[in-house]
């Protein structure tokens, strides 16, 4: 009872701190100076049609690198926790086998889904979407396979290699920016090209591809670890 009162008080108190702020902020009429600067410089200097992508991958690319690291370390943590050797196989043989339809469909769809994912991350600088969204789509393909064949294991070694190498590639592209352009993660290593074409915005599509592969592999890793069937 006491506890309920305290929780109520805490929530009311927190609301008291938070709501005025949310209300007072109101709706802006104009973007701020910083936003305007991004909107004006991103297309001009980086040749990226999608300003958000330009910010995410380039101006604030360091954040994104950190974000990839977060996902990476979380995957490692989940893996370390849930795939320890002494845990052993948890539920092998207990699951209902998937239906024939699902298995056939999976075979057909996997390739398509992966290609769709790749499309999303390679066009991140032009259209909405990018490495993370593409990565999720790729992970969906993995998920589908898991559903279709619960006892099967993904080629774990391949996944690890994809994850590691795409991560290293991301860092390497970043370093190229430092050596060939003006700074770490500077996409202007390659020509920025004309806005709207696939080959534009410097190395942004490459970086997003690396991110896409890496995120896809990591998310698959999380799903697999949670499934808990890995030997």
């Amino acid at each position, binding site marked *: 009872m006491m*506890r309920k009162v*305290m*929780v109520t*008080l*805490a*929530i009311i*108190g*927190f609301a*008291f*701190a*938070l709501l*005025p*702020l949310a209300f007072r*902020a109101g709706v802006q009429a104009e973007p*701020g*100076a*910083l936003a305007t600067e991004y909107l004006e*410089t991103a297309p001009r200097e980086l040749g990226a049609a999608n300003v958000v992508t330009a910010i995410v991958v380039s*101006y*604030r*690319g*360091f*954040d994104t*690198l*950190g974000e990839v*690291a*977060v996902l*990476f*370390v*979380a995957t*490692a*943590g989940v*893996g*370390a*926790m849930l*795939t*320890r050797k002494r845990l052993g196989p948890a539920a092998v043989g207990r699951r209902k086998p998937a239906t024939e339809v699902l298995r056939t469909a999976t075979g057909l769809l996997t390739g398509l889904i992966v290609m769709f994912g790749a499309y999303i991350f390679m066009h991140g600088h032009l259209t909405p979407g990018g490495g993370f969204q593409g990565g999720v789509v790729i992970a969906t393909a993995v998920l589908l396979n898991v559903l279709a064949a619960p006892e099967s294991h993904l080629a774990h070694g391949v996944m*690890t*290699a994809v*994850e*590691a*190498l795409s*991560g*290293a590639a*991301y*860092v*390497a592209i*970043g*370093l190229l*920016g*430092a050596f060939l*352009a*003006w*700074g*770490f*993660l*500077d*996409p*202007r290593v390659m020509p920025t090209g004309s806005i709207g074409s696939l080959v534009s915005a410097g190395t942004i599509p490459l970086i997003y591809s690396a991110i896409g592969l*890496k995120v896809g592999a990591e998310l698959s890793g999380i799903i697999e670890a949670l499934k808990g069937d890995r030997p």
Partner: protein
Amino acid sequence: MVNPLYLFACSLAAAFLLPLVDKLGRKASLGLAYATVAAWGAAALSYLWALFPGGSPTESFGTAGFAAPLAIMLRVGPEEAAGLLAVSAVGLLSAGAMHRSLAKAPIGGAIALLMALMGMSGIILTRDLFNLFVFMEISSIATYGLIAYDDRRAALRAGFKYMMAGGIASALYLIGVIYAYRFGGQLNIDLAARSPGLYGAAGTVAAFFLLAALLIELKPFPANGWAIDVYQTVDPGLSAILSGASATALLLALWKIMPILGDAQLSVVAGSGLATFAASNLVGARQSNARRMLGYSSVAQVGLVAAVAALTRLLSLGDDRFAYMVAGGLLLNHLLAKTGLFLLSRALGEPGSQAGAQRRRERALSPIGTAIAGVLAVGLVGLPPFPGFWAKWSLIRALAGARQWWLIVVILGASLVEAFYVLRWFGRIADMRGEDGYAGPEAGIAGPALCAAALAGFGIASGLALGVGDPLLWAPFAALAALLLVDRAPGWLKSLLSIAAVAAFGRLAFDRLDGLRLFFAVMLLGGGAMYSFAAMYKRGPRRGLHPLLSAATLALGAILVADSPLGFFFAWETMTLASYLLVLRGKKGERAALGYVVFGLGGAFLLMVGLAAIPGAWSFRPTGGADGWPILLIIGGLLVKLGALGVHVWLPGAYAESDDDVSGFLSSSLSKAGVFVMIVALAAFGGVVPFQALTLRALGWIGLATALFGALYAIYQEDVKKTLAWSSMGQIGYVILALAINDQAGWTTALYLALNHFLYKSMLFLAIAGVIKRVGTRNMYEMGGLIKTMPFSFLSVLMAIIALSGVPPLSGFGGKWLLYSSLLQKGWYLEAAVAFFASAVAFLYLFRLIHTIFLGQPKPSQSTVREAPLALTIPQGFLMAVLLAASAFPRLMLDPVMGVVGDVFDPILRFEGSTLVSPLGYWDGTLSMIVTIVVFALCFFWMLANLHNPQPVKQFNIVYAAERPFKPWTTHYAWSFYAPYEKALGFLTRRRGERFWEAFGTGVDSVGGAIRRVYTGNGQTYALHVVLYVVALYLLTGAL
């Protein structure tokens, strides 16, 4: 400067590739991880080198080829470089400690370790609010991974609680960031700090959310239960990272956002930090589980550092340099000590869970391990020469300058509690040591050893930076280190080396010793050398004794020569430290040493505040009047050290439980340091104190009460050392009384009494040390008749008690005569009467000393004991000679004393030939000596002529006539010798002092007990605390 971005690239590439490298073998992958952490350390060193005063200024690095505000900026300045070094150093040390678990666990463990450290480095370097969030998340998520990596149930339990608190903090931080962007228009901290939008009403709330999130991450009381549980349960290596590296990073983050905080918010930071410091230390005092205790201490220290950082800005205590020195010094101290202690806690074995805490599963440490634990513990509580000591001094001095007395009270009070429980823990560790077992060092001791070495190194450096460069002040530590190196050598060699050290010190210090200092140097340095010599009376190396004894002696010397308040306080605390360890060395010294050091520190804190409160640069030389009240604090602190009644409770234990020769040193030499400082301090104030008459009268009565009760307690003791301990207290009481008279006669008396006390108490302790060695007990009723087997010791004790009791012809009479003369002269008649009564009481225990030990029938088992060893009898012989000479020719002692006092006061006493004349009478020591000798000789010859045929009587023949007594020793005549007097005087000897302090301790303890009810162990309750804490902060910042 190498661009730190490369280091991030390096770490990330290494982390990404670790799973692949791991296929080559765990050695390769761990090697890669460690090498990456080491690279950070190397880079940090290079930054520090480049930034070294005179080098390049702070440098900024942009990402992606742009600069702020478009891109994220990193900055490398002095605090960043130092923080990076701390993170990588702690990281490497902890990695070393966790190596075995890392090698066994999945590779995720190593990845998490690497990412956690990189995240912390990112927190330190970044200047972008959102980027700070990303790095905080990296380090938290990696920490969650690390908590779980070795799959312990308790750690998982704690980890979930941590995640809940962390989740709430992240949400708060994000809300803060976005509104800071909304109102400030920037994400870059430096640009945001310049934008007016952040200082409006709404902008302030945005800054508040940022602050609240950081504060929660810094584990404030009471919203820190989750953190304590984590400290307690996870791998100690990880605890070290969290308590050292992570706290450093987060404190620097707090430091970073401080420019955007308003005064109200800064006050909240300071208040919350101090509350955390106080409350966590109170709760820490209740802990029996070492790691949980260290957890509370960690939280407390971080709170203090945060508070200091906020106060520096809030009260304008100083510039950034001051903040680096004080907050940085405290942080460094905490970082190194806590890292070392956490790593060391592994060697102590797995402490039981809360339920099983009673079963001590801890192992004893090797001597080396114990020494390292000692360095770390002593460093943690802020004793010299470690960085915490210097930082605390600077802090208190600045706070005194800003007249923030309550802050000083809170900080020092909580520090004392912390010292209490940390040293209690260390005492327990030291007590577990095997009897002279030379076990080799533990595995994994290298990390703690490095921490201890770094702690000492930084401590020395900060001392030098504060201008304490006088080699004589550092001599105690030099002697300590040098003698520890040869600690395996035979005792006699170390004794000689100690004496040589004291002699060398005396030679070097000689030019600086004026009359007063020379006078005390005889007792302090001479006494120390004498006890070093006496230490040879026990065989064997007596490990640890000589280094500590000579360190304590040289510290006493340093007190004499120190010429600045800080230098003096440094020497004083060095003396406290060395003597604490000496007491702890005693066989059952654990409890006594704890009492000794806690009261010693309490007194020292009073002294420190008094010294710090004196305005301007006060040289520790007589200068005449200054504005008054700090002298009261100084006197108060000294009274604690002198063992005045009420604050004397540490005294009997410390004097009785330390080694028998050490007891003598403490009682006869060390206690005089307080007298010296009292005189110097009073002289510096020209003998003027606030409320002159009242204060002096009160001081006089304190001394008188001390004298009376010391004597009263002494008469009921069965333990001979306890008797001597209480007697020391009583005798020092007379000195206090004499000082309170505060004129030439009074001070002359005080100095004379002090010197006398040194002489006869040394003789007593040395003689009794010999007796205890020979008969193997300290109980007086188990001794008897030793006059035949130990005649020399008898003679020594006899002369000493004659001198002590103040009957002619020995110098004690002069002391008593001076005392009564001065008291009557001053008009303190009642005092004189009570002093007389106290002297009469003293006769009782003195009589018992000589009677039950040396007279009567010898115990059958003791009829063949030998005389005391030469190492004891030689100093006694020397002292006897001095005593006789001083008694026959009082001018030998009084001339220097009166010379010293003459500088301060108008003369009251003067010499006419060998006769000392006061307005009330005169005393001729030479004459009274001659008269006494003549009378004694006449009596003696009469006795020889008239006594024939003495009849020996069997000692126990009455007892055995009836039945066999159940406790035979109770039938000995010396058992409960003064029981009859107990009826008359017993009501005076109830231990009110002990009871008061016990009740006080229980009170403090139960406050801690009540506070710790907050920590229910339920993660959800902890989350509730976090939210309530934030709400409370919000209301407070609004109200302020």
